[in-house]
């Protein structure tokens, strides 16, 4: 059983949490016309790495708030827990974020038009 440290409530058993799957999937904006195949990247295609994985969790039987977790899918080691809307800071988790195929998809580019102006930082 995993012990997950909720950023708001502290360490709790995994039964109190719900896993929301892959983190950092941004919805393409409606006014950006992308193809069905590109939209499928957003809607259905999932990163499914053997190793470090960035995912969302919710403390559903506690404070009911969402947060991000960087967890190894082989050892179950939790490398980092960080707030929604932000990116990981630990090197390994940062690399996982940057090297995901999702960063190059048209869907993601269509999700945050302002990102390109800001030079990719957030």
């Amino acid at each position: 059983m995993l012990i997950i440290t909720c950023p708001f409530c502290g360490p709790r058993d995994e039964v109190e949490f719900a896993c929301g799957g892959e983190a950092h999937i941004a919805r393409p904006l409606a006014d950006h016309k992308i193809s069905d195949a590109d939209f499928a990247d957003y809607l259905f295609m999932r990163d499914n790495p053997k190793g470090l994985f960035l995912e969302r969790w919710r403390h559903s039987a506690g404070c009911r708030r969402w947060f991000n977790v960087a967890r190894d899918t082989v050892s179950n080691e939790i490398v980092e827990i960080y707030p929604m809307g932000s990116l990981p800071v630990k090197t390994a988790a940062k690399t996982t974020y940057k090297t995901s195929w999702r960063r190059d998809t048209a869907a993601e580019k269509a999700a945050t038009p302002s990102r390109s102006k800001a030079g990719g930082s957030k």
Partner: protein
Amino acid sequence: MAQNHPDRGQRGLPGGAPRYSAFALAKKAMNYHQDWQRAWRDPEPKAEYDAVIIGGGGHGLATAYYLAAVHGLTNIAVIEKGWIGGGNTGRNTTIIRSNYLWDESAAIYEHSMKLWEGMSQDLNFNVMFSQRGVLTIAHSEHELREMSRRVHAIRLNGIDSEILGPAEIKKFVPTINIDQSIRYPVMGGFLQRRGGTARHDAVAWGYARAADDLGVDIIQKCEVTGLRRQGRKIIGVETSRGFIKTKKVGCVVAGHSSVVAAMAGIRLPIASRPLQALVSEPIKPILDTVIMSNAVHMYISQSDKGEMVLGAGVDKYNSYAQRGSFPVPEHMLAAAVELFPVLSRLRMLRHWGGIVDTCPDASPIISKTDIEGLYFDCGWGTGGFKATPGSGHVFADLIANDRPNKIAAPYSLDRFRTGLLIDEHGAAGVAH
């Protein structure tokens, strides 16, 4: 499938020549059974094959067998990282049924069921296929109503299925508790009498032996480390035992599908999750059928050895560790004990997890890819075992002819672009 062949008596397909006899068994007993011949060879990989199947589980071996037996493609290899049948093929709860709601699912699972019915003959290997029935229980009025709708749909597809009331269930399964006061009372259920179980290891061994007989190289302890491409074309696979040249690669690696797909730069909609099962100490026969419960996500049967075999739903987060999270079996066992109070003092002997490849619509992917010569058969999720022969049969056809047949066509990867999903979530008897 198992139509009679003039030269082969009952057997419709080649491979799996007879080699054991009661006399040989007695004779070898004198020598402590030390000099039995190998059931299949242990060849070194050749430099080139017409096709390479990645993954030596039931589906991969079935694919190789049907490629050789039906399509005459014998210069092929099955490459397995560990040993054959050592992954999910040896980790499932061996349940076989074809009572699915949607036409597409009915087509493939019933195709599979028919192959199961002739498999021991086809392979000349006793896979201990036992049509002991699969009974899915409803625990609420609503569930029962939804179930009757499903039963009618299934029957319209020509698949046997019937509704039972609590009294009939009690008669069919005397050990079950039908008291209406329990947390999940038995309101009724639906039964597929042709459903049942098979010996999972025997399925892998039977296919391996028959495929090997036809010249298929089964290469174990050989891990695929890369897929070599020339433009949009496959030209071979990199393995831990060197490069193997080939124009066609069939990938049948279940939980590791995303890992192999990434080698070719392909994205899949798959999430790899642990699916847990456990067996109890062996006891005398108390359950001669398979019981499934959708609402509590529990399924139970008794093996020929007497062990109670129990399975649950998938874990809720991705994992490649072949073990699961404890709360899942805990929840399932609580439900099992309520339904079968007789189990309450049983000790559990073994508990394990297999990594299953779950798809967003709970249906498999049997598909070509954007890369010429690369095919995927994956996404079977929690329900792959029952589909073993059907999956191998249609996948072999896809690889041999480079186009999906009528049964495989709906399972293309394209459905995630077109939106033509085959949503079997909940529509299946669930628990797969």
